[in-house]
């Protein structure tokens, strides 16, 4: 059987255009139904290269599909990763315009900052905790470029794991005395409690997410790097946002983080 020639760069451009023009597009597996996860990452690599060529800087990797519910829904046993760039950072308490986005959703996360590089395979939760300099309370705004937020695994991998915006809290927190899997998280929109969970919602422990990242990157000869801010995945479910939403997350012992979504 003839394998259909795929131009990863042109698919990456298609997705990047959707992000720039803030329009949802048809998922790529409609045209390429046999697209593999590995090919999804090849497209993501083109996307990342293109952003780097434009002068944007990587803040750190992010993990997606880290909850049991999401992995079950997508029928996978491994999360996905993507990259957060400098232009995606919104300052704590600042405004973000809905005009910059397509159909954003928000989730509460714990971000990690490592004090040394971690390269898989064989990285464990314990290795991660020993190498963790800080944790940071975070809100991640995901914004799939695909119609109705509907996608298969290769689609979402190609789309940089739906990365869009991120807000970090004001504090760098030493995690030594905190059971990160027991950190209670609440998400309020306009003062109303919309979602909640504890750190264990992320693969049983948020540090396990970093370990899996290091192991996934290790397969490609890459590593989770010291100084990067690593988003570990949603503790809460992702909540669809509307204009005029004032979003606040509270994480026990770690802090608060908020932003306002304007028209």
């Amino acid at each position, binding site marked *: 059987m003839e394998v259909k020639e795929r131009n990863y760069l042109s698919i990456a451009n298609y997705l990047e255009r959707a992000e720039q023009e803030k329009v949802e597009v048809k998922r790529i597996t409609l045209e390429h139904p046999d697209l593999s996860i590995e090919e999804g990452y090849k497209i993501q690599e083109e996307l990342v290269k293109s952003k780097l060529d434009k002068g944007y800087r990587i803040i750190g990797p992010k993990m997606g599909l880290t909850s049991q519910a999401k992995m079950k829904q997508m029928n996978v046993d491994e999360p996905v990763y993507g990259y957060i760039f400098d232009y995606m950072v919104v300052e704590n308490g600042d405004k973000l315009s809905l005009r910059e986005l397509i159909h954003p959703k928000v989730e509460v996360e714990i971000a990690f900052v490592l004090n040394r590089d971690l390269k898989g395979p064989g990285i464990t939760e314990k290795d991660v905790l020993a190498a963790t300099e800080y944790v940071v309370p975070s809100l991640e705004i995901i914004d799939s470029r695909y119609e109705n937020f509907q996608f298969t695994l290769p689609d979402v991998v190609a789309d940089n794991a739906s990365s869009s915006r991120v807000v970090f809290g004001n504090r760098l927190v030493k995690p030594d005395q905190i059971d990160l899997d*027991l950190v*209670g998280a609440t998400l309020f929109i306009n003062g109303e*409690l919309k979602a909640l969970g*504890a750190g264990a919602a992320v693969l049983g422990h948020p540090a396990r997410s970093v370990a899996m990242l290091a192991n996934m990157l290790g397969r490609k000869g890459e590593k989770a790097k010291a100084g990067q801010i690593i988003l570990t995945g949603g503790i809460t479910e992702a909540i669809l946002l509307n204009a005029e939403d004032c979003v606040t997350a509270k994480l*026990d012992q770690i802090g608060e983080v908020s932003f306002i979504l304007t028209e």
Partner: protein
Amino acid sequence: MKPATSNLATKLADHLAKAEKTGKGVQPLTELEPELTIEQAYQVQLVTIGRKIKAGARVTGKKIGLTSLAMQQLLGVDQPDYGHLLDDMVVKNGGQVSFKRVLQPKVEAEIAFVLKKELTGPRVNAMDVLLATDYILPALEIVDSRVSNWQIKLPDTIADNASSGLYVLGEKPVKIDSVDLAQIGMVLYKNGEMMDTGVGAAALGNPAVCVAWLANKLYEFGISLKAGEVILSGALSAAVDAEPGDRFEARLAHLGNVSVRFVHE
């Protein structure tokens, strides 16, 4: 109290008692008495509790139910309910529960309050609760229904002592100063597998608000919450079905762990 209500309460309490006697769930009370009101349902509960006290049981505290938005929506209600805790419902931490003691148990993780001061409604608020609290404990509540297949409407569960079954408390009392109750994280495991995570805010936004609600609700019956009483403030997790052989454990931030195992005999 009108004699008519009393007769109805006695009749329905008898109906529920059949379930405990035979070990089989009974027909919903709301099928027997479609017009059963909330007030009448609480009367049924009080008749049953009165009988148990007469037979030697002692009230150890109260439990608050239907504190999550999800449960309230499921039953189409906009407020919690409550039931009585008795000394024969206590299971020690790490202990076993025979299936002879339960009908169709489910397990929830909660925060338990123990008061050092009496709390009397009306207009008790969350801060009153904090100031009256001696300590808190991690708890597992084993909810159970005497109504077959959990076919309950609000009056059914209220009459059935808010579907109370048994409860397990952790041993380490924790003072509440410097703990934000709303942010206490919780993970519930069944046979080592994570079933659910939650946080204090899952119970009406703050477990202390649940206790305040209870103090104010009890005021309607001329009852107060007494020093030393245990108050199960409401589920932080979904209720998970239990089968013989299952081991449940909850881990709560700041509070520690609490566990129970179900056995056939």
